[in-house]
């Protein structure tokens, strides 16, 4: 909710109810998940399923099965909560993510409202 309110164009991948409670897999439209992971590296530990090793990487077959387009697939990032994670840490992580995603989107060719 913090991310959607602060950014817009944020999609939770998978069911909102039938999922592990500590896992959040989201797509930030117009942003590459691996690039976001690099920006966050000193502050928030996340995982990206879109690491590429060449100029022609393949979209995640799971994301494709969920009906998500290629651009949404590249923008996917996974957050996990640990036993000791606090609400304050989640708030700080959300603020950090919002700042980096907003800046990365200024470079993105994917226009607001046209993101998928």
């Amino acid at each position: 909710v913090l991310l959607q309110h602060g950014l817009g164009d944020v999609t939770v991948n998978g069911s909102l109810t039938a999922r592990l409670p500590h896992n959040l897999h989201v797509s930030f439209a117009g942003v590459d998940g691996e690039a976001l992971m690099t920006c966050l590296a000193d502050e928030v530990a996340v995982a990206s399923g879109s690491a590429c090793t060449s100029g022609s990487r393949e979209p995640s077959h799971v994301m494709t099965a969920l009906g998500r387009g290629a651009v949404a697939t590249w923008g996917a990032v996974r957050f996990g909560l640990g036993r000791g994670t606090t609400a304050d840490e989640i708030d700080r992580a959300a603020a950090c993510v919002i700042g980096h995603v907003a800046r990365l989107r200024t470079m993105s060719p994917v226009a607001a409202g046209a993101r998928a």
Partner: protein
Amino acid sequence: MTGAYSDAVRERCREPRRAGAWPDGDRGVATGSAGSLEAGAWTRLQVRVGADGRVVDTRFKVFGCSAAIASASYVADALIGATLAEAKAVAAGDVAAALDLPDGKHAMAALATEAARAAAEAWAAGVPGAALAGEPGPGIKEVVTS
């Protein structure tokens, strides 16, 4: 992947220089792009050419991984002061070496240099000398490479 990146890549990813775009039709600006969103990496470079026939400013847009962002930012910096021939000659290997890109990421440096070459081709083909000297002209032209 993040851990394999150099400080130069991380710095340009977090604080990219020359990010942005000039509007279509801006006089004295040539644009080139390479890659595709569907393939997961796309870069566009714009060069503003001065009356002396050299690049006076640049902007880039990019969609892609950290290496793609860093490469686009690096090439946008490297093009400042370049002649047409120099803009065409920016080498992907030099970009990859300067950023210390991992071996598997050299394609992202090539993407940025392809965009630079495309911008140079647009410059050669469509940015008239009259416009560069301050006279009205068609200004922007874009060359797209696959």
